[in-house]
């Protein structure tokens, strides 16, 4: 996630920083200052070739192909104890490539058919969204339904994982360059409050210590941006850079822009010394010349920079690569009522995301670093990201998904004699001008609750919402105004049926009430299926496919008995994951050793998962000082017994089985494990409060994900309620994460991910279990059914029913 600003006042507890791993054996070769802490002119990246350092030979501790990326070796032993590993899987682990259609559907393979339109598809989902508003609702079901209704600017190809033009025809990406404050003709000055205007300022930022339970609140510092004559300059860039390394502070600085009056309030960083810089900003495609100068070439016709600008060394102070994106939209995209989709709609979405009264906090966090969204014409829009970030383009492409139709809301208010505006207005101004502001409180409330859009949104995709019978189903029909015939979808109607109960859903399949049972339980897939009569078995095709997800047990490092990584390693060795998969899941899962998607570029396939080996586990436990001194069958150390309480959500029988196996294995080496399945809301509360020794959970993620939320130490403190639920802290991990986030070259990022993977393997904060498959069954009359390795794993617009097999008119 993208919240550079908010890992601010965190590191008050930095004294604790090393306590997690200080004791734990040899740590990977230490890095030295290669992260771009020094912001000047280091961060430029072309995104194509590798490193900037060029020809120099690989240094020890760094990757050969990317000599500025610290390399972590795969752990082989701890304190002389050899770490057993599983044989590397020979399963093809290709993420991308063509996906075969209709696997397992014998009839489809026997006779070839051509795609035709017609018929109805009824799919079962396990939950109902509260609304179908893509800003205020954040459930997976909403996304799975609305992906057919609201499209992206660029859509992800399910086979290549590349992004292809969709609503946008093409995009042009430019870099942001901040000139030096004395650049002739573009001088800039900054002042604190009424102090002297200067080219740079030193800022001693002190966060007062937390008081009686309330988290520390950093003070706000008021800045004024001006030119050299002291006239205020609006919308001027200000960068605040840490001097040296400040734990928890952004290593590429905090980038802010002053307001209309040239004023700006900054704050919320960790205590430390900062340099405040100012300079005029230009953007374009940058290229470093051999003599060290930098050429900035405007790549869009809309760029205010009219011609190429060559900057000598020292004339610029910061580059953020690929932060300016100009999208050129297709001019034939229509909403389902026939109105054109224009950049006005995108500006509307931007206004809504910046309206804190709009209940879209889950989405808003993704766009908190989208600092500008300006229409340059009805079909040209420029978006600016705060700083370079490897997932920025993904977020921008998705922006259209969260875009509601402006004209729809304009009409509602026009009928009340009011005009909907995107300008920020106070309630008084709204009343006086007979306007309503999309950034205002009244509109926020309206948008959150009005049924007209929330239960029957207009769309621009191949399907639109025809009706929503609450608690029962949503019906989608083909959009008559859809603008891309090749992707228009084949079935006439998609009925999404909400059946929360697994048994009822399975019965509904048997009774023929649904065509596609999504989210079957493994028990149903393997066992209950056998109990079906032959006819039913022949009518449906059962399928299993991978999606980006992994299951894990986390060992809370705030628990004293789990602080030592030798313990955590030993615990991993006490569960034979492969055997469990073979026996209970019939092999339909892959044991993983790290946090990235097993098929993705971030997963290091050289790191074989740690093997089941109770003997080595015993050795490690003894090495860490846990010995059964009183012969009661339970290990102890300094009079403390080795006891662990594992908590998890209730309701998945397979999880109970896992726990029973683990409990038994733990008992054999003298560890007392109790497991507590809890009702979900209670479990989440315990999880957030970090009141679990151990937890079992699944993370879902993208094909490549940002480890920040789960692993960065700024989320580790006990009072932080984020996703770092095991309070993992590692300075080295932090540095890798910070480097990763600003690296745009996928090859280099892959290496950083690999180092991170090895580090996580070494520390074993989790016992990584497996990436399971999703299970389902669908009616065999459907053809061109493909299972992709992205969530949800299928694209219903591709499915069709041959004319002679269609069941519904």
């Amino acid at each position, binding site marked *: *996630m*993208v*919240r550079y600003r*908010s890992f601010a006042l965190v590191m008050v507890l930095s004294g604790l920083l090393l306590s997690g791993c200080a004791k734990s054996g040899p740590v990977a070769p230490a890095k030295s200052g290669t992260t771009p802490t020094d912001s000047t002119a280091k961060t430029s990246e072309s995104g194509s070739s590798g490193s900037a350092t060029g020809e120099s030979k690989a240094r020890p501790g760094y990757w050969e192909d990317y000599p500025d990326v610290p390399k972590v070796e795969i752990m082989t032993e701890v304190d002389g104890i050899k770490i057993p590993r599983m044989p590397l899987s020979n399963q093809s682990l290709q993420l991308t490539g063509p996906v075969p259609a209709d696997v397992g559907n014998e009839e489809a393979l026997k006779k070839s058919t051509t795609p035709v339109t017609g018929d109805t598809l009824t799919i079962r989902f*396990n*939950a109902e969204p*509260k*609304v179908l508003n893509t800003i*205020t609702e954040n*459930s*997976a*079901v909403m996304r799975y339904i609305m992906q057919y209704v609201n499209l992206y600017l660029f859509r992800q190809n399910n086979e290549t994982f590349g992004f292809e033009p969709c609503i946008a025809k093409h995009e042009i990406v430019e870099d942001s360059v901040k000139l030096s404050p004395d650049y002739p003709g573009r001088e800039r000055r900054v002042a604190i409050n009424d102090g002297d205007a200067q080219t740079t300022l030193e800022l001693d930022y002190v966060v007062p210590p937390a008081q009686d339970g309330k988290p520390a609140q950093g003070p706000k510092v008021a800045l004024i941006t001006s030119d050299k004559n002291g006239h205020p300059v609006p919308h001027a860039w200000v960068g605040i850079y840490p001097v040296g390394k400040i734990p928890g502070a952004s290593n590429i600085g905090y980038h802010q822009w002053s307001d209309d009056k040239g004023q700006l309030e900054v704050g919320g960083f960790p205590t430390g010394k900062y340099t405040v810089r100012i300079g005029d900003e230009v953007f374009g495609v940058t290229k470093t010349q051999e003599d060290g100068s930098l050429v900035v070439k405007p790549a869009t016709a809309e760029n205010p920079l009219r011609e190429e600008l060559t900057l000598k060394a020292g004339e610029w102070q910061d580059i953020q690569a690929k932060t300016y994106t100009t999208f050129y939209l297709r001019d034939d995209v229509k909403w389902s009522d026939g109105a054109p989709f224009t950049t006005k709609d995108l500006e509307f979405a931007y206004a809504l995301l910046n309206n*804190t009264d709009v*209940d879209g*906090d*889950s989405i*808003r*966090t993704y766009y908190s670093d989208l600092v500008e969204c300006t229409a340059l014409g009805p079909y040209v829009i420029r978006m600016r990201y705060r700083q370079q970030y490897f997932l920025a383009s993904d977020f921008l492409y998705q922006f259209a998904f969260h875009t509601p139709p402006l004209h729809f809301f304009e009409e509602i208010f026009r009928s009340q004699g009011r005009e909907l505006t995107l300008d920020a207005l106070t309630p008084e101004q709204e009343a006086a001008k007979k306007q309503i502001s999309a950034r205002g409180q009244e509109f926020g409330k309206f948008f*959150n*609750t009005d049924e007209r859009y929330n239960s029957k949104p207009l769309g621009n995709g191949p399907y639109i919402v025809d009706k929503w019978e*609450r*608690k*029962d*189903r949503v019906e989608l029909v083909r959009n008559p105004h859809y603008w891309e015939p090749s992707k228009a979808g084949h079935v006439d109607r998609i*009925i999404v049926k909400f059946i*929360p*109960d697994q*048994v*009822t859903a399975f*019965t*509904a399949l*048997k*009774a*023929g*009430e649904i065509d596609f049972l999504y*989210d079957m339980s493994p028990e149903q897939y393997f066992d209950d299926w056998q109990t079906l009569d032959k006819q039913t078995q022949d009518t449906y095709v059962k399928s299993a496919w991978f999606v980006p*997800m992994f299951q894990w047990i986390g060992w809370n490092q705030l628990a004293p008995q789990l602080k030592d990584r030798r313990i955590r390693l030993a615990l991993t060795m006490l569960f034979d994951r492969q055997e469990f998969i073979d026996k209970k899941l019939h092999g339909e899962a892959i044991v993983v050793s790290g946090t990235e998607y097993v098929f993705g570029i971030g997963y290091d396939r050289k790191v074989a998962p740690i093997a089941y080996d109770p003997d080595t586990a015993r050795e490690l436990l003894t090495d860490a000082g846990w010995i059964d001194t009183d012969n009661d069958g339970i290990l102890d150390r300094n009079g403390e017994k080795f006891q662990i309480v594992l908590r998890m*959500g209730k*309701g998945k029988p397979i999880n109970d089985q896992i726990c029973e196996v683990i409990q038994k294995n733990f008992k054999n080496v003298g560890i007392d494990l109790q497991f507590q399945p809890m*009702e*979900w*809301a*209670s479990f*989440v*509360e*315990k999880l*957030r409060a970090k009141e679990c020794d151990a937890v079992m*959970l*699944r*993370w*879902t*993620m*993208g094909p490549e*994900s940002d480890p920040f*939320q*789960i692993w960065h130490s700024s989320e580790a403190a006990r009072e*932080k*309620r*984020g*996703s770092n639920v095991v309070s993992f802290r590692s300075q080295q991990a932090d540095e890798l994460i910070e480097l990763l986030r600003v690296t745009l070259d996928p090859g280099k990022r892959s290496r950083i991910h690999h180092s991170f993977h090895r580090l996580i393997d070494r520390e074993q904060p989790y016992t990584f279990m497996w990436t399971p498959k999703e299970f389902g069954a669908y009616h065999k009359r459907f053809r061109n059914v493909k299972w992709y390795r992205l969530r949800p794993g299928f694209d219903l617009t591709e499915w069709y029913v041959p004319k002679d097999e269609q069941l519904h008119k």
Partner: protein
Amino acid sequence: MATYLIKRLFLMIPTLFGILVVSFLVIRLAPGDPAAEKFGGAGQAASGVNASRGTEAAEKRFRQRHGFDKPLPTQFAMYLNRLVHGDMIFFQSEQPIWKELWAALKITMLLNLIVFTLIYVAAVPLGIISAAYPRSTFDRFSTMALFIMYSLPSFWVAELLRQLAMQNWLWSSLGFQSRWPIMGLKSQNFDSLTSFEQLCDYAQHIVLPVLCLTYGGLAYVSRQMRAGMLEVIRQDYIRTAEAKGCSKARVILVHALRNSLFPIITLLASLLPFLVGGSVIIEVIFNIHGMGLLSYEGVLRREYDLVMTTLMLSAVLTLIGILVSDVLYVIVNPRVSFEDK
């Protein structure tokens, strides 16, 4: 009688307040709150938790907006304030609860009215006949059948009935064209049917859930009726009636019936709350969204206002039910009067 009623109605106020406090405490003392649910909700329990979540700040704002960060007494005061204004909301969507509550209430009340009518229509005569001819073949047979029914768990019966309903040959041999619906309350083409067809469609859908809800209660009520009646026909005045030559039917239906209705009337007190309380199990199995599922989900999702409202609804109806049965008691039994109390 009027003063008695007024007194009773006033007494209900402190009782209700007590119930309010206790239920508020119970639901609030459970860990978790709507904020955690909204941002890390049960929706994610099934599919896995999204790893790229970063909503702590948003959660904090949400908590502050609804006062979940305040001490419990303050929250209780906030709740009372909302209650007085009728401003009960789903916290997560910030929508009033009334629409969903009313939708669920309609479903449950209709189902339960049918069930209750069926239970009484069948159970009272059954009980009377059993009592009139104790230890007869009919009595033995019905006793056994009813006890077996009483002990069958409803989820099991529901599953059996559902399996039976899925045998398409059965329906085609009985002359039905389409298969029997096994879940929901309406067919998907409900809106396009004529009103008579809609009625038939609805009737078809509710047969299975109504059966499952009826048979247990049937056994219970008819046993009560039988016991009540047996108690009465041992009395002297019944012997007198028989001795003076009344027919058996007259003795039972005129002389004994009225007095044997006392236990049934007591049971009636539970009628009102029963009307608005759905069965979670049956509703889950048949995918019916009545009061049972609504309040169950309300608890899981920590929608405090909804839970409190359903609890209060039951509480108020229970109190009214008790009052009504007390009044009925006096009406059927002249030996009891309000003045005695």
